[in-house]
């Protein structure tokens, strides 16, 4: 246990073993209230924004769509798939292929927005206040009593909600109770442990009631007794806001807010579940194996807005931050907006910006083509300058063991990387390569600057190709 871990233990914060403490740099955007991005002239909505099979385009070119119109029907033949909706009022264009922020490829539905004058109106010259519509105003706890679990699931499915934390697993499938593995607790993940990102944090501060309402709905759908909202200690405003919202429930402590140590990767479910409950998710298994369902706080807010207000998942809060951005902001933007539009809305790139990352700096993907569209799972854009990237030279592995010391899953990264490099996938398997969650702690501390995560990812990809 490091000194930081001991202090966290003394303060009574939930924590897990190992992990790292990169500078959090949340202050760049943490106090910027969520702004609404004016509707762009065009969006490109990918049909594959989720785990599983891509959605099927159903609108012929030139057909008119409104915000929330279904444009991608889920693939019924697949067990896992999700719907996709128009995020802009306008006309559908012919399908195009796009690169997603995570480097994968997908078909996408471009929508050319209506003329500017018809996109705004006198009452709302800046466009529609989507934040008020989706998450704002008051939420009535009693409202959720009227819904049956299957109505909640249906509404979530129809709204095309998928995990907004990045994994993109369709949420309606998570809300399905499993007879063989009943869930006892819903864990709402508000850790947002990646440096720089502040989208979830702002949402918790500005719309705690929406988050808590979504939590109650999800809990009802799953049929579990207890719920815990986990937030890292460096977001006191969010903790206070959520505590306030939970107090109003008056539910005899069945819902609690748990403060976690600020440590990367606290927001990984395999770290968060041991930290909060002391339970280990079996390697190769799922949180449900220990009776827990994990949802992101932004997903919960989307559930509330879908079930009680009928909104589809067409917008998301995204933080645009980093030293390489002129005015870091948190934006509520339509899904499918090009990253370039988001960056332009934040004053553009600073002169010394040199890396644009979809996501946070630990697990995000560097993009060079800024026409990449915002997807449901993209919680932030981080722009770094040369100074933050300052790298040292790569040497041979000096077997210092630091990668083992920090791997939150207790793996031996240097061993796995070495095995993959020499094509020994069996050996890599013996070192539990497939358990790696790509968190990047190992490469973050490696003095030899070995691209450990790249090797391990490569090994996992080869391994999956072989088993398929």
């Amino acid at each position, binding site marked *: 246990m490091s000194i930081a871990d001991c202090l966290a233990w003394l303060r009574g914060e939930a924590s897990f073993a190992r992990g790292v403490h990169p500078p959090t740099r949340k202050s760049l955007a943490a106090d910027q209230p969520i702004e609404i991005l004016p509707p762009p002239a065009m969006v490109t909505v990918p049909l594959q924004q989720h785990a599983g099979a891509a959605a099927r385009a159903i609108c012929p070119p030139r057909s008119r769509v409104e915000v929330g119109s279904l444009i991608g029907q889920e693939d019924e033949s697949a067990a896992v798939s999700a719907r996709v909706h128009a995020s802009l009022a306008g006309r559908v264009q012919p399908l195009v292929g796009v690169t997603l922020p995570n480097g994968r490829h997908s078909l996408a539905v471009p929508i050319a927005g209506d003329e500017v004058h018809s996109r705004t109106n006198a009452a709302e010259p800046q466009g529609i206040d989507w934040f008020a519509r989706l998450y704002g105003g008051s939420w009535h706890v009693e409202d959720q009593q009227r819904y049956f679990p299957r109505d909640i699931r249906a509404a979530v499915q129809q709204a095309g909600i998928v995990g907004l934390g990045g994994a993109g697993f369709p949420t309606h499938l998570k809300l399905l109770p499993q007879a063989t593995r009943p869930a006892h607790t819903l864990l709402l993940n508000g850790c947002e442990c990646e440096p720089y990102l502040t989208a979830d944090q702002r949402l918790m501060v500005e719309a705690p009631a929406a988050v808590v309402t979504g939590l109650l709905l999800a809990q009802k759908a799953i049929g579990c007794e207890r719920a815990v909202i986990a937030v890292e200690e460096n977001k006191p405003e969010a903790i206070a806001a959520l505590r306030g919202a939970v107090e109003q429930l008056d539910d005899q402590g069945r819902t609690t807010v748990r403060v976690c140590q600020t440590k990367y990767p606290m927001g990984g479910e395999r770290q968060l579940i041991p930290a909060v409950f002391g339970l280990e998710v079996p390697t190769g298994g799922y949180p449900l194996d220990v009776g827990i369902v994990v949802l992101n706080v932004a997903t919960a807010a989307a559930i509330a807005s879908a079930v009680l207000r009928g909104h589809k998942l067409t917008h998301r809060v995204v933080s645009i931050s980093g030293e390489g951005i002129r005015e870091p902001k948190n934006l509520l933007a339509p899904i499918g907006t090009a990253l370039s539009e988001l960056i332009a809305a934040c004053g553009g790139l600073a002169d010394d910006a040199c890396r644009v990352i979809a996501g946070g700096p630990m697990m995000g993907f560097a993009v060079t083509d800024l026409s990449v569209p915002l997807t449901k799972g993209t919680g932030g854009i981080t722009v770094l300058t040369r100074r933050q990237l300052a790298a040292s030279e790569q040497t041979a592995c000096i077997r210092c063991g630091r990668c083992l010391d920090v791997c939150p*899953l207790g793996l031996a990264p240097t061993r796995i990387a070495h095995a993959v490099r020499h094509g020994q996938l069996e050996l890599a398997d013996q070192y539990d390569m497939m358990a790696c969650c790509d968190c990047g702690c190992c490469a973050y501390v490696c003095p030899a600057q070995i691209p450990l995560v790249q090797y391990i990812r490569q090994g996992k990809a080869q391994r999956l190709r072989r088993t398929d």
Partner: protein
Amino acid sequence: MDPSNVESGEHFPTALETAAGPHLLAPGASTRRMMLDVLIGLVPVLAAALWYFRLAAAAQLLVALAVALATEWVICRLRGRASSLSDASVCITALLLACSLPPQLPLAATALGSFVAVALGKMAFGGLGQNLFNPAMVGRAFLMICFPASMTQWTEPLTVHATTQATPLAAARFAGEFIELPRLLVGNVAGCVGETSAILITLGGLWLIVRRAADWRLTAGMLAGVVVVAVVEEVVRGADQSLGWARHVSAGAVLLGAFFIVTDPVTSPLSKSGRWLFGILVGLLTMIIRLLAGYPEGVMFAVLVGNAVTPLLNRWTTPVPVGGHTRRAAGRKPADTGPG
């Protein structure tokens, strides 16, 4: 409309680059930085060496350094690789070797030892990170075998004209004379170039630990191993017949070994538990050699034996993943979910 028009070029004058994550790097995470920290930690040790053994120490250090650098450079050239001198690890090997030699050792022997340390101890295995044994200890063992007489000739410190003297351990072992602790702490005793001053070695060693260039578990493990056996000896033989734990720790190469030699990352185990076992093993072996074998000092052989069992320790202490080993029969692909 062509979606690629969405990117409006004029906002983005900067050249963007691509790279795999993580995009941040822990401050000070560099092999060179780590090695430089070891060199900084060696400064007090070298200062003590130069103070007590004057020119003799300077000559040993310089010869070892020059030969080691030349050897590594030539071998890199011969193998057609870029020179690896810039990571500074070869300097550490050379200085540690010189620190573990008697001050009056003929310089030709020093040169040979330094060559063997780098050529056989390090480069023959493939260079940095590949060697099984601590290169400095390989060089020293070679000299011990080739020049057993010169390697056990000791001189009194602070004298220009060397007079032969026994080391504290040899005196205790063969003559039953016990040197008092304060002299061991300041280092005004006969011994290898850089091993005599307990206080200054500890000072440099603490720097390594604070800077995390060395893992404290290795140091603590070795010291614990030494202390335990020393206490047992004291109980068995009686306090007046034994050196006692404090003098066992401060005499000879134990402190230099605990702070600078067992902490070599390359030749010590990967996991924390492995490092504990390794440190304790080296400590115990050191004392067993000191008390039971023919040599008065045992650090070098203990380290080499420890290095030899390191692969085994690594195998025994392979960490178990959180959630247990992958269930192979389950036929499910492990979930690939990251932090949210």
